């Protein structure tokens, strides 16, 4: 018996979110009186794999085969399922990100294992095995009982803190036979050097109240000073003021930063659905009755154009810049 966690890598490196995932898996393992094993697919060096021990992985299984260079949901599912069966995993933990979402439901079918998707805290109980997840796009939460012997969980991003528990993880290389992957990657377009919206701890987001694409520089400046990512509401990306990948909301990106600045955003239900898991929300809006103030903990009723430069100045002063 054990808890298996799939740790994705990005060009051979793990991220903070990988360590959150391993921390979560080892806590689940503790609740079940067992230990956590990580599985890595692709070319990751031993030092990097070893790091997973710092967050509680007792063993790291590394599957590195040429055929698994790019994500093919069928092939990756097959590898993780094989490893899970080999080690007798009772729970498989996967990130609730794009690749995790393409794998976890397939694992559920392949292993006939109940899926708890987008789980945002430790299981409510292990018998019956009950997880807590977001429902109705943040309008509610649900306690869901996973009724099968083996379970698959996807962990919502930024929902669990890193816990350091130095273990000396053993590394095991494993070969798994898989059918030739059917997904062929023709072209990769990566943005380099930009902090990813889904990884950011602080996000500064602008809405229609910013009035024009030309008014964005104080948002970008504030974000740079705070080490934050920039985001926007749907009307802004629809107008082409900001790129679509910044659109945050129900149909755009769902984010859960620690601190979210909503500037000139009124707070339509669809926008709130994408940001309601943020730890703190700060709203700046000239309409005192805007719904964003119902979910914000800090607010300024005022003209964003006037307030933003003063916020920038205040942050500069505090940071001594």
């Amino acid at each position, binding site marked *: 018996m054990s808890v298996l966690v799939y740790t994705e890598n990005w060009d051979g490196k793990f991220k903070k979110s990988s360590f959150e995932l391993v921390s979560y898996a080892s806590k689940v393992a503790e609740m079940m009186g067992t230990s956590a094993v990580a599985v890595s697919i692709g070319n990751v060096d031993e030092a990097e794999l070893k790091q997973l021990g710092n967050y509680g992985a007792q063993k790291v299984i590394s599957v590195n085969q040429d055929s698994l260079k790019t994500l093919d949901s069928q092939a990756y599912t097959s590898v993780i399922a094989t490893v899970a069966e080999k080690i007798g995993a009772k729970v498989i933990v996967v990130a609730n990100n794009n690749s995790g979402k393409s794998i976890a439901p397939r694992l559920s079918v392949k292993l006939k294992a109940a899926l708890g998707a987008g789980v945002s805290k430790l299981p409510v109980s292990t018998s019956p095995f009950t997880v807590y997840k977001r429902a109705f796009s943040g309008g509610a939460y649900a306690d869901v009982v996973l009724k099968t012997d083996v379970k698959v969980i996807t962990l919502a991003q930024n929902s669990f803190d890193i816990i350091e528990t130095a273990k000396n993880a053993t590394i095991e290389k494993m070969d798994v036979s898989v059918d030739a992957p059917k997904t062929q990657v023709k072209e990769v377009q990566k943005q380099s050097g930009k902090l990813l919206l889904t990884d950011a701890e602080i996000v500064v987001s602008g809405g229609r109240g910013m009035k024009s694409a030309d008014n964005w520089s104080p948002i970008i400046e504030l974000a740079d000073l705070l080490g934050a990512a920039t985001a926007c509401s749907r009307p802004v990306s629809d107008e082409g003021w900001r790129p679509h990948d910044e659109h945050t909301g*129900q149909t755009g990106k769902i984010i859960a930063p620690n601190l979210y600045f909503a500037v000139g955003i009124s707070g339509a239900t669809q926008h709130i659905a994408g940001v309601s898991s943020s730890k703190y929300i700060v709203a700046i809006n000239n309409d005192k009755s805007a719904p964003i103030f119902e979910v914000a903990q800090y607010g300024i009723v005022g003209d964003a154009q006037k307030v933003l430069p003063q916020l920038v100045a205040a942050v500069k002063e505090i940071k001594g810049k």
Partner: protein
Amino acid sequence: MKILVCISNVPDTTTKVKFVDGNTKLDVNGIQWVINPWDELSLTRALELKDDASTGVKSVTVAHVGLAASEPTIRKALAIGADDAIRVNADPTDAYHVAAQLAEVVKKEQFDIIMCGIESSDFNSSAVGSMLAEFLVMPSVSAVSSLRIENGTAVITREIDGGKEIVTVPAPFVAIVQKGIAKEPRIAAMRGIMMARTKVIKLYEPVAIDALTETAKFEMPAPRAACKFVDAENPKQLIELLQAETKLI
């Protein structure tokens, strides 16, 4: 080439949900039901592909798992332009149950491209599309923001962390689509609405499949602390408050 679009029937996205029966069931009183927003975009893209003769797409079918009460949502999909519709006559119990029902439909009807929305706005599990693909032992591509057909082959853009990949997979396959797949959902025209009224919705009886999960109860989100207002004349105070209370700045 035949496309299947799987549609889910969800409360209008502006609904403030409430629960009944000891918080185990959604209170359906007064709810407006709509096609799940991502499924509506899928349908729009499928119809755009069919409109372009060079793609070779001959028909767009919609399939839904639900009881007769969900027929207005299926009619809406027909009104928007789907050629035909299938309803599996079952009360959907969980994603596994729904995907298993859809798999039976696909096995009987045969499609080249199956499109599913990335998630439903009610359970947010992002599960049905990928589960369906696994039941069918078919390739699937997730987070699809563009789907084109060039010389009979599907060319797909998928979103990855911090970028995009352009990929191909052989048909039949499942495309799990997100924002970007179509610009705006297509709206039903009067002619479509009239035609949809008389179209026959093909009925499938469900296969016996047990759900693997069960919702024990729903909860409302924890109330957030009331907003502390800072005077617009003194924004510096906001930064000081954030520094002192959140320790994040």
